[in-house]
C-alpha cells in the first residue's frame, strides 16, 4: 500500500505524448526516472509532491474509514481500544503534516508562483528538490512507525503521556514530523526569496495575484513557526530517550509548557493550511465572475494580518488545561480579533460575484463550496473561542467538526478546486467537465452529511477519541458514517477522471477559462523555462473588462 517516496510507475503512465505541445513542454524532454528524480524544474517538483501527497492521503483516508466504521456501533467490535487509538493518531499525523501542510503550497505554489510572477523558476531550485527529498525521508519514518505498530498518543503528542507512558513507537513518529518540519522551513525560505527577488519588471506588489500574497504569508508562518515545533518534539524525544524532565511533572517539569510550545506552532499551522486555500479561492472567484476582485487591498492586507495575528492566539486550545484564567481571557479576546480578517475575505469574495458574469464550472463550484463550508467552520471557531462555551465543548466532537470544516471543507475543497482550475495548464489535457461538477456537488453533500451531525454530537457531550460511547449517540454516528462513505466516493471520482484525462482528455487550449494572470499567457503545459523572454507587466490583476466577457461576443 505504501508507495510514498518510490516513484509510482502505475500513476505516472503518461499517455504517449501525442500532442506536440506536450512534447515541447516540461513534460517532454527526458522523461526517464532518473531525470524526474534529479529535476530542479519547479513544475516537475510540483508533480513529484502531487504524487507523494496523494499516496499519503490514501493511507490516512483508510485510517479515517476504519475510524468511521468502528463508530457505527457503541461497542468496540471492529477495532480494539489499542487499534482505534493508533488509527486516529496515524490519521492525524499523516493528514496534518504529510497532506494538508504540503498540499496547496508545495504542489500549486511550486508550480504557479514562478509562472504568476513572470520568473523562470524558484530562487533556489536545488533547495526545492532537497526539500522534497527531506519530505519523503520524513515520510519513510512515518511509514516505519505504521509498519512497526503505530503510535497511540494522538497527533498532539501531549506529555507526560507521550514522553513517559505511551508505548507505541513515539520516537519514530517524532522523528518523522521533525524531518518534515525542515522540509517546510526550506520551502518557506524558497517562496519568500522568490516572491521578493524574482518578480518580473512591472510586477509590483499591487499587481501580484492574491494567490502569491497568500503564499507569501504562508511562507512567513512556515519559516517562523515550524522551528518551535521541531525543538519541542526534539525535547519530547530527549525525554523518552535520555530521561530529561522538562515536561515531566514527576521530575519537576511542567506538562503545560509542552502544550504552550506545541500550540504556538500548531495554531499558525492551521493558517498554513487555510491561507493557501484562500489564495486559490481569491483566484477562482474573479475567474468565475469575470470581474475584478472586490477590495483587492483589503484582502491582501487581511492575508498578512491573519499571518501575524495567528501567532497571538494559541492559548485558546488550553482554556480548560489548567492555564491561568487571566491568560485564558487574554487569548479569548485575541482570538476574536484574528477572526476579523477572515470575515473580510469571505465578504469580499461574495461581493465580487455581484454583477459578474458567472460560469458555474467545476472549479467555481468547489470555490463556492469552500466559501460555504469555511464560513461555517470559521464562525463555529468563534463559538469555541468564547470561554464559557469552550469549557463545555472542548475535546468533544464539536471541536472535531469545527476543524474538519476548516481543513477538509476548506483546504481540501480548495485543493480540488485548484486541481480542476489549473489541470489544463499543468498537464495540457481537459478533464471531463460533467464529472467534475458531479464530484463537486457529491463532495459538498457528503461532507455536510458527515460532519454536521458531529456538531450535535459535540454539543451532546460526546468526547473526542472515544471508540466506545453511550448508545444515545449511535444514530448521529451512523448518519456521519454514511456521509463519510459518500465523501469517500466523492474523493475517488476526481482521481479517476483526472487519470482518465491523461490518456483521453482532449488537448487543453492556452486559456480555457479566459482568466487573467501570467500563467495563462504561456502554452499549456508550459515549456521548460516558462517564458521565452521575461514578460513586462503593465495591467492590474483580474482586470476583466466586460468586453472581454465571452457572453457578449
Amino acid at each position: 500500500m505504501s508507495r510514498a517516496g518510490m516513484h509510482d510507475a502505475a500513476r505516472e503512465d503518461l499517455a504517449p505524448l501525442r500532442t506536440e505541445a506536450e512534447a515541447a513542454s516540461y513534460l517532454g524532454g527526458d522523461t526517464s526516472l532518473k531525470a524526474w528524480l534529479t529535476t530542479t524544474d519547479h513544475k516537475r517538483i510540483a508533480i513529484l509532491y502531487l504524487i507523494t501527497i496523494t499516496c499519503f492521503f490514501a493511507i490516512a483516508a483508510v485510517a479515517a474509514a476504519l475510524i468511521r466504521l468502528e463508530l457505527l456501533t457503541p461497542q468496540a467490535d471492529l477495532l480494539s481500544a489499542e487499534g482505534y487509538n493508533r488509527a486516529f493518531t496515524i490519521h492525524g499525523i499523516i493528514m496534518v503534516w504529510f497532506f494538508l501542510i504540503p498540499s496547496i503550497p508545495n504542489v500549486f505554489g511550486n508550480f504557479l508562483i514562478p509562472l504568476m510572477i513572470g520568473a523562470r523558476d524558484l530562487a533556489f531550485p536545488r533547495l526545492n528538490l532537497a526539500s522534497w527529498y527531506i519530505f519523503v525521508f520524513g515520510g519513510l519514518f512515518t511509514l516505519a512507525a505504521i509498519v512497526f505498530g503505530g503510535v497511540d498518543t494522538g497527533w498532539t503528542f501531549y506529555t507526560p503521556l507521550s514522553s513517559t507512558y505511551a508505548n507505541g513507537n513515539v520516537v519514530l513518529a517524532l522523528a518523522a514530523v521533525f524531518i518534515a518540519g525542515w522540509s517546510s522551513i526550506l520551502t518557506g525560505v524558497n517562496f519568500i526569496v522568490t516572491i521578493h527577488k524574482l518578480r518580473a519588471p512591472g510586477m509590483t506588489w499591487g499587481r501580484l495575484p492574491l494567490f502569491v500574497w497568500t503564499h507569501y504569508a504562508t511562507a512567513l508562518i512556515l519559516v517562523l513557526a515550524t522551528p518551535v515545533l521541531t525543538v519541542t518534539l526534539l525535547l519530547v524525544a530527549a525525554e523518552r530517550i535520555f530521561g530529561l524532565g522538562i515536561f515531566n511533572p514527576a521530575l519537576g517539569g511542567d506538562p503545560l509548557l509542552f502544550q504552550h510550545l506545541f500550540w504556538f506552532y500548531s495554531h499558525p499551522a492551521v493558517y498554513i493550511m487555510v491561507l493557501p486555500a484562500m489564495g486559490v479561492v481569491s483566484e477562482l472567484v474573479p475567474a468565475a465572475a469575470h470581474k475584478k476582485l472586490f477590495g483587492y487591498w483589503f484582502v491582501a492586507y487581511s492575508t498578512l494580518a491573519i499571518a501575524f495575528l495567528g501567532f497571538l492566539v494559541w492559548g485558546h486550545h488550553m482554556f480548560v488545561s489548567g492555564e491561568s484564567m487571566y491568560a485564558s481571557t487574554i487569548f479569548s479576546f485575541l482570538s476574536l480579533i484574528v477572526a476579523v480578517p477572515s470575515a473580510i475575505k469571505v465578504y469580499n469574495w461574495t461581493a465580487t460575484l455581484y454583477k459578474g458574469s458567472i460560469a458555474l464550472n467545476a472549479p467555481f463550484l468547489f470555490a463556492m463550496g469552500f466559501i460555504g463550508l469555511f464560513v461555517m467552520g470559521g464562525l463555529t471557531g468563534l463559538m469555541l473561542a468564547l470561554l464559557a462555551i469552550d469549557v463545555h465543548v472542548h475535546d468533544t466532537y464539536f471541536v472535531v467538526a469545527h476543524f474538519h470544516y476548516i481543513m477538509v471543507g476548506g483546504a481540501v475543497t480548495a485543493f480540488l478546486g485548484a486541481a480542476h482550475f489549473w489541470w489544463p495548464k499543468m498537464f495540457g489535457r481537459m478533464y471531463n467537465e460533467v464529472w467534475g461538477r458531479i464530484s463537486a456537488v457529491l463532495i459538498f453533500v457528503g461532507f455536510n452529511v458527515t460532519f454536521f451531525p458531529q456538531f450535535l454530537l459535540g454539543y451532546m457531550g460526546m468526547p473526542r477519541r472515544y471508540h466506545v460511547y453511550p448508545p444515545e449517540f449511535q444514530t448521529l454516528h451512523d448518519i456521519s458514517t454514511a456521509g463519510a462513505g459518500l465523501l469517500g466516493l466523492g474523493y475517488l471520482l476526481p482521481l479517476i477522471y483526472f487519470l482518465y484525462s491523461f490518456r483521453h482528455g482532449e488537448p487543453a487550449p492556452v486559456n480555457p477559462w479566459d482568466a487573467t494572470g501570467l500563467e495563462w499567457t504561456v502554452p499549456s503545459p508550459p515549456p521548460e523555462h516558462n517564458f521565452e523572454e521575461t514578460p513586462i507587466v503593465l495591467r492590474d490583476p483580474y482586470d476583466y473588462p466586460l468586453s472581454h466577457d465571452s457572453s457578449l461576443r
Partner: protein
Amino acid sequence: MTLARHEPFPDIARQREADRFGMVVFLASEAMLFGAVVMGLFALRTFEPAAFAATSQRLNLVAGSVNTAVLLTSSLLVAIGAEARASDRAALAKWMLAAAAALGLVFLVIKGSEYVQEYGEGLMPGVGPRQDFATPGARMFMDGYFIATGLHALHVTIGVVMLAGCAWRLRGDDPPSIVGVGNIGLYWHLVDIVWVFLFPILYLSR
C-alpha cells in the same frame, strides 16, 4: 571564480541579494528555535527561582566567561575575513577564517571540559556516577542547560567545519564566492548571538 549566474536570475547582482536574503530568513528560523528553548527555560524558572539560582552557581563561571570572549573574538575574525574576501585579499581572508575555526575548536574544548566536570559532580541528569540534585528545580535547570548548550555546541561544530572548509578553499584557486563567505559569516555571528543570550541566562542567574 566569482559566483556563476544561476538559471532563474536575470542578473548576478539580484542573485547575490537573493542568496544573502535567503540566508537571513533561514537564520530567523534558527533564532526562533533557540528562542523557544530560552522561553521554555524562563517559564520553568518561575516554578523554583531559588533552585535555578543555586544550581547556576555550581556552573564553571570562568569557563563560561572565557568561552564568551572566545566566541566574540572569533566573530571579529570572521567579520575581518569576510571583509578581506570582499576586497579580494584571499590570503588574509584565509588566515582569518582559519583562526576563527581554531577559536571555535577552543570553545568546543572548553565546553567539553565543563561537561566532563559536570559529569563528575553528578550534575548530568540521569547519567554519571551519582545524581547530586537537591530539588526538582535543580534538575530542571540542568536539563535546560544541557539542551540549550548541546544544541548550541552542535551549531558551533557545524560552523567550525564550514569555516575550515572555506579557509581550505581560499588556499587554492577555487575560492568560495563573496556571498558564500558572507553567508557563513552570518551563520557564525548568529551562533555567537545565541551564546550571548545563553551565557547570562545560564551562568549569571546566580
